């Protein structure tokens, strides 16, 4: 069942490739249909997910919809997939975001078929990564996501797309190889040798080996930090986003960035709990630096898309702060650690929805007027009220206004982190202030005041664009108002993980 969810988009993509000369509209609607079907299947997984997991069995206790096949037995790698409370929300978020992109691309007429096939391929890769329970399988999907996104940016980007794409590929590939070295380190340390995450969690192979554990965590940490991205490994992100097409940015920020953060929760924390606690302070510092640096640099941007890109660095910084704080929590603070981890995973989902919406909105600006420069616009609220409403909603969600998903996530992170690491948490709170300032300023520049030189070219959202963007924001509001349907899934897994790394 899970494998169908993962590979359905790829199969559909291959089928599209084989069909001789299909019409562009047929391709676009096939893509939407497949993405919807995949979302329905994920919802099926969600509804039928057994709720009683994650008792005392540890973070890798129970997985639903598991499949375990032999793949390369001589090096202990298998095709092992399954979902738990961490992966299920991300799978759902991925399916939603890809559907939004499919709808948004209905009028895309630049090499339509290749575009659709590439995104279907990326969807399989993302779904596969979030359900992989084998390090090698995880790595395969991790690397393929880079290859797929490279072709999206190089093929459909604008501006200096080839340069940005190459930089993106080289930088994130460097990260992925660091990750691979870490995985090989884990493999060599395990006995019997395996790449299986569940088995590795049970073994905790490098527990007590200070140096080796630290080195492996360093390699894995760098690999994931490049992808997340955190300061100082974030420099590939702004150019890649600026020059990527709108849907490419939405997937890059919404889904691909989560792969890094998810890797911390899925691999680094449960398999190396000792080393994680040991070096958690480093992660907290990196997280807080990302929060503040990302927010301050975003404040200085005049380019709307670059600004959103830098707020991604800021938002992923909160995730890292929460995960690091969980590692520093003492045994008595297990509840705080649970809260921080839950908040981190919620933030991944929330950020995926909100940033996806923001990048799609940025794409609308570029489609109409050809620039992201905020100085070129002004007074859009009167000209495009629907656009302004949705954008304002996304802005408020991103800056953490209560009633939207960002608040639920960030509140839990801060509440959970304040006990274990009070000073960094207080510093990170300043980040919220800066983000609020920058979003309010952007709101003012774009939507209020007199019209800018390009305001006249902006017309309001079409039905297609609204259908792509509004559901993302509606989900964000739903999480904000009724967080329980999401938190009930995440919390048991978070509790088990917190028990592993805290104390």
């Amino acid at each position: 069942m899970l494998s169908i969810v993962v590979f359905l988009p790829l199969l559909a993509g291959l089928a599209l490739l084989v069909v001789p000369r299909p019409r562009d509209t047929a391709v676009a609607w096939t893509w939407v249909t497949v993405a919807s079907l995949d979302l329905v299947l994920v919802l099926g997984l969600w509804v039928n997910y057994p709720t009683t997991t994650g008792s005392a069995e540890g973070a890798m206790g129970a997985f639903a919809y598991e499949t375990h096949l032999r793949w390369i037995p001589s090096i202990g790698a298998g095709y092992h997939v399954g979902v738990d409370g961490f992966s299920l929300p991300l799978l759902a978020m991925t399916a939603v975001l890809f559907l939004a992109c499919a709808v948004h691309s209905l009028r895309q007429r630049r090499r339509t078929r290749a575009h659709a096939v590439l995104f279907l391929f990326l969807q399989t890769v993302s779904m596969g990564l979030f359900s992989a329970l084998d390090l090698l399988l995880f790595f395969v999907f991790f690397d393929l996501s880079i290859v797929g996104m490279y072709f999206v940016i190089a093929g459909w980007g604008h501006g200096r797309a080839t340069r940005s794409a190459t930089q993106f590929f080289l930088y994130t590939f460097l990260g992925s190889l660091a990750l691979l070295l870490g995985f090989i380190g884990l493999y060599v340390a395990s006995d019997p040798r395996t790449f299986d995450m569940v088995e590795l969690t049970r073994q905790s192979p490098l527990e007590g080996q200070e140096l080796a554990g630290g080195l492996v965590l360093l390699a894995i940490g760098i690999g994931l930090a490049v992808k997340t991205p955190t300061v100082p490994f974030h420099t590939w992100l702004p150019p890649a986003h600026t020059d990527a097409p709108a849907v490419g940015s939405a997937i890059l920020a919404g889904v691909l960035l989560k792969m890094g953060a998810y890797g911390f929760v899925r691999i680094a924390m449960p398999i190396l709990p000792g080393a994680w606690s040991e070096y958690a302070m480093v992660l907290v510092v990196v997280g807080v630096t990302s929060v503040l640096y990302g927010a301050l640099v975003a404040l200085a941007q005049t380019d709307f898309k670059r600004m959103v890109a830098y707020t991604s660095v800021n938002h992923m910084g909160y995730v890292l702060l929460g995960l690091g704080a969980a590692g520093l929590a003492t045994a008595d603070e297990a509840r705080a650690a649970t809260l921080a981890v839950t908040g981190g995973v919620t933030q991944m989902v929330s950020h995926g929805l909100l940033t996806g919406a923001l990048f799609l909105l940025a794409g609308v600006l570029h489609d109409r007027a050809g620039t992201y420069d905020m100085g070129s616009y002004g007074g859009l609220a009167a000209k495009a009220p629907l656009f302004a409403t949705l954008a304002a909603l996304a802005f408020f969600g991103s800056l953490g206004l209560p009633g939207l998903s960002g608040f639920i996530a960030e509140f839990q992170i801060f509440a959970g982190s304040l006990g274990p690491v009070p000073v960094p948490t207080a510093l990170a709170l300043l980040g919220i202030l800066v983000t609020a300032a920058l979003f309010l300023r952007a709101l003012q520049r774009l939507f209020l005041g007199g019209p800018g030189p390009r305001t006249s070219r902006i017309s309001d959202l079409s039905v297609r664009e609204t259908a792509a963007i509004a559901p993302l924001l509606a989900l964000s509001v739903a999480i904000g108002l009724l967080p329980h349907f999401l938190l009930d899934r995440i919390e048991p897994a978070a509790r088990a993980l917190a028990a592993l790394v805290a104390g």
Partner: protein
Amino acid sequence: MSGMGEMNLAALLPEMILALAAVGALLLGSWTPRERQWIVRLFVAVALLSGLAATLLAAAGASGPTSGVHTVDTATHAVRAAVLVGTLATVLLAADTFADHPRESEFYVLLLLGALGTVALAGATDLLVLAVAYLLASIPLYALVGFAKDGPGTEAALKFYLLGALSGILLLTGAALLLGAGGTTGYAGLAGALPGAPRALVAAGVVAVLAGLLFKAGGVPLHFWVPDVTQGAPVPVAAFVTTVPKIGALVALYRLGDQVLAKAPLDWALLAGLLAAASMTLGNLGAFFQTDARRLLAYSTVSQVGYLLMAAAAVGGRAGLAEPGLLFYLGAYLAANLGAFAVVCALRARTLEEHTGLFRRHPWLALSLVVCLLSLVGTPPTAVFVGKLALFTAALDAGLGRLMVLAAANTVASLFYYLRWILPLFRASAPAEAAKTASAPWSTGVAITAAVASLGMGIVAGPVLSLL
């Protein structure tokens, strides 16, 4: 020459088929009119396929030393299969380039002899057999490189020959020195005798023997012929010379390290590790700013030798994955490298610029090239990824963590120049170049097959790896 027992000829069936096919092709070619030389091509292809069948049958049966000087084991089987497939692919590539060439049959004869030498190189367990196999794997190739009788080809052949003659002499000198040190040229005898031999003598002998094998493999510091030969020789020859002899040479190197030198009084792991590091790094540096696709591929093969030498550094039973990893990587490399050369062969495009807009003109060729180049990088799920993974693991197992990190860094660096080739494929092309390419059905077929094999071997790596 200890243990020179009775020869088991049946175990050498694939080698005999190659030798007989060479003689047969020569005779058949002499009596066939020039416009009907496709008969010779067909004959050679059938011979190679029957050799492959014989290899598979032999691999399914028992293996062991055929005599004291040559052994048939998993590595030999794997090399035989890889070399036969590689030779067959070269014959198919040549079908586009050399069809109705006045000396077409000679081309096949030389090719078959070179392949025979390569296979013999891999199975040798005696330094003298190694030297003979070296000569057999080298001399036909000198002629092949100059086959087109043009300026660049002749220059390349001369360079190739001079460097080859030098390293051949070094190889023989090394064999003589090791004979002096150990009193025998057989690997089994040397393994027992060398630990007690004078260190300087052993070191000098080993370095000299290594020179010969590194020349065949195209590794630093004997890689200087690689770019010139790849650029000057006809493309099918370049594909063969940079791919097939490597397979035999690297397995011979591994065997020598594993069976003789792991316990000899010199730091073999350090020596092999340094050579590996130098090859991968210098090959990459050389490839960075090449504008000619063939020179870029040439330097990339040098860097690939570096990764493959990691297996030779991890010998001596310290890493269980070293030998299967090496063999798998060689097969994966064969597919990826031949695929890339097949695209060059099919297009007759020389510079990277000339590949602009290929995706529009020949989407399948462009996709094959992308798969093969990404495979050379080691992107999952292609076959080279599994090979690299196995060798990285072997290196870490053998305590060569720093070499592994260097290899990973080099992999990232290599991505840069492969991307320089991939990027133009998807750009819009200048209209003048659109109609330039002639049709090359065989090369196109080889390219697509190689790309599919690269992907397929990666995805079903499990069963393949468990055979090795």
